[in-house]
């Protein structure tokens, strides 16, 4: 009962704060101006709040419980991705002035075709990321109420749609920042109680010779799959549409770097915990499922305190569904409205409904995979499309429009195809199954190679303003130089 109360509380709070947000901030440019006063800690908390989805909150512990030590790489990659983002992308991206990935593509390559292709990829990655959020909302809702899964998905989808349509959430850095600390608390407090309970149980450990604890074990091709997972997570982080937007709220490139450093610290602190949940889950013989995080506190602590802790983790899980889904929906809807429909408030409303409806429908029909697995696939698509675009775009002058198009099509296309085959036709076995379930190890090199080779073959298609763009991307803001006059188009 207390769990349902916790869910209702989180939903109500989200809708109310969203509604209140309209009065605080009306337009994107308000958001932009207001954000100039936001410190790196607030900004980083907001990025963390938006980034830590159901996959992080529930999925990692579930996968670790199921597959063992190899899955420890998942949170490592989701944190370490920010180190790669920091050194290769953060400051130049902020300096580019781009608000979304398609904006960056347009600013750097001066091509509407590349911009449109990027938009399509943003929408696909966004939907792939949203679908498992809705699925696991259904799963958790069924666990606490016994209702069929689609009711929970529908509940979250409706609240997200209302929230985004009312213009809240996105506009307030504070709300997303609060979500990070809520999720951290919702995982840390029960963990502290559980460790006390575990200690007073006489610190039960693993039975001798338990292979679960060993790395490179339990799957078909563990070495390939481990490397592919590492590549997807470390390189995919920079290509996530909802993360990128937050970088715009930094005043300059230097602050963007410092924010990323704080993000890395905050995520590192958070990701210390799911592994412990997985470990305790295994020691206490919990069933292998995404809901282990929800079920574990009640199993270890029990009584009214256990019930309170269960309510707390449930609230945290719903906060994770809502914050990530809202962030993704805003990003996807913004791109649909601006680049596919013709812009304006009406288009944004239609786009919001589309952005939520499609993944909701997919959540109902698609094969139910562990949430962190599907989110991992979204990372693989991002790593094979936007990672080469950003890295080569920022550091390599000779990238051409044709090269970028070809690389996005080849890498993004192959990764998307692998995802579709895995989700619809899977599970496949043997080498084919591994290559399709963890495509990054081959799609990322393909994408980079195609982008470089095609660029070298089409030297006449280097954008004319590339020198000015390089000045804009790399010179510190303190210098008084001509940075060109490109500006992102706000709706």
């Amino acid at each position, binding site marked *: 009962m207390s769990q349902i109360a916790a869910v209702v509380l989180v939903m109500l709070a989200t809708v109310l704060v969203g509604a209140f947000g309209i009065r605080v901030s009306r337009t994107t440019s308000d958001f932009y101006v207001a954000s100039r006063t936001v410190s790196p800690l607030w900004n980083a908390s907001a990025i963390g709040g938006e980034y830590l989805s159901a996959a992080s909150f529930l999925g990692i512990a579930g996968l670790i419980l199921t597959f063992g030590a190899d899955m420890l790489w998942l949170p490592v990659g989701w944190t370490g991705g920010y*180190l790669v983002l920091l050194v290769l992308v953060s400051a130049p991206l902020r300096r580019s002035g781009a608000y979304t990935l398609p904006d960056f593509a347009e600013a750097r390559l001066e091509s509407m075709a590349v911009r449109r292709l990027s938009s399509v990829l943003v929408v696909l990655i966004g939907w792939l990321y949203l679908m498992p959020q809705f699925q696991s909302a259904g799963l958790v809702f069924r666990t606490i109420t016994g209702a069929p899964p689609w009711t929970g998905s529908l509940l979250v989808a409706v609240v997200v749609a209302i929230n985004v349509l009312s213009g809240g959430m996105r506009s307030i850095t504070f709300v997303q920042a609060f979500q990070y600390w809520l999720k951290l608390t919702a995982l840390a407090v029960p963990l502290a109680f559980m460790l006390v309970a575990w200690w007073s149980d006489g610190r039960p450990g693993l039975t001798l010779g338990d292979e679960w604890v060993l790395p490179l074990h339990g799957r078909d091709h563990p070495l390939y799959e481990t490397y592919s997972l590492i590549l997807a997570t470390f390189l995919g982080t920079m290509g996530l549409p909802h993360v990128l937007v937050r970088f715009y709220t930094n005043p300059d490139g230097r602050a963007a770097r410092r924010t990323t450093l704080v993000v890395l610290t905050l995520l590192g602190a958070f990701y210390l915990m799911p592994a412990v949940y997985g470990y305790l889950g295994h020691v206490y013989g919990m069933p292998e499922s995404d809901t282990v995080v929800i079920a574990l506190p009640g199993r270890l602590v029990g009584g009214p305190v256990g019930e309170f802790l269960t309510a707390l983790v449930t609230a945290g899980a719903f906060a994770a569904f809502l914050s990530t889904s809202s962030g993704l929906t805003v990003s996807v809807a913004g791109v649909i409205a601006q680049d596919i429909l013709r812009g304006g408030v009406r288009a944004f409303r239609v786009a919001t409904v589309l952005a939520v409806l499609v993944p909701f429908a997919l959540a109902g029909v698609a094969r139910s995979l562990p949430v962190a697995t599907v989110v991992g696939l979204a990372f693989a698509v991002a790593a094979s499309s936007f990672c080469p675009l950003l890295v080569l775009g920022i550091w390599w002058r000779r990238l051409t429009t044709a090269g970028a198009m070809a690389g996005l099509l080849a890498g993004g296309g192959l990764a998307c195809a692998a995802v579709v085959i895995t989700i619809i036709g899977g599970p496949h076995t043997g080498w084919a199954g591994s290559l399709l379930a963890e495509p990054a190890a081959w799609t990322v090199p393909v994408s980079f190679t195609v982008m470089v080779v095609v660029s070298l073959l089409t030297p006449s298609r280097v954008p004319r303003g590339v*020198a000015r763009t390089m000045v804009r991307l*790399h010179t510190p803001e303190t210098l008084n130089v001509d940075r060109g006059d490109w500006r992102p188009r706000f709706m």
Partner: protein
Amino acid sequence: MTGKPRRAAATGPRGQGEGAAPTGKPRRVVVTSPRTAAARRPRHPLTREIDEQTRLGEVYMGSLVRTQFRLALFVCSLLACVVGGLPLLFLLAPELRAAELFGLPLPWVVLAGLIYPALVVGAWLYVRQAERNERDFADLVERR
């Protein structure tokens, strides 16, 4: 750089001592040296070279991008060695998979614990160096 050589006065700002030699015999004086500071000053600031995309401006921009890229590449290579090396280490030395540290399995201690502070320290060092590179570039371009 200024084009015309200046026929400068024998005594510059820091050259007072030279004319007043106690021997009374006229000394040979190097006339160019006191004005070197003035001669070295470019006709216009380097930011204008960058704005006008002259050869010189391009060279300066190229050096900034290269410095930052080398730093980024260094961090990425280090990361690749650590992160890419660990699975290989577990593959080649299977006894490490089951080894224990502080009473916990070694792979868990590393992957679920130690690696996170290591990432943060790496990021912190990178930020420091990247900001230093930018400061150096700004000093170079804006120097008098």
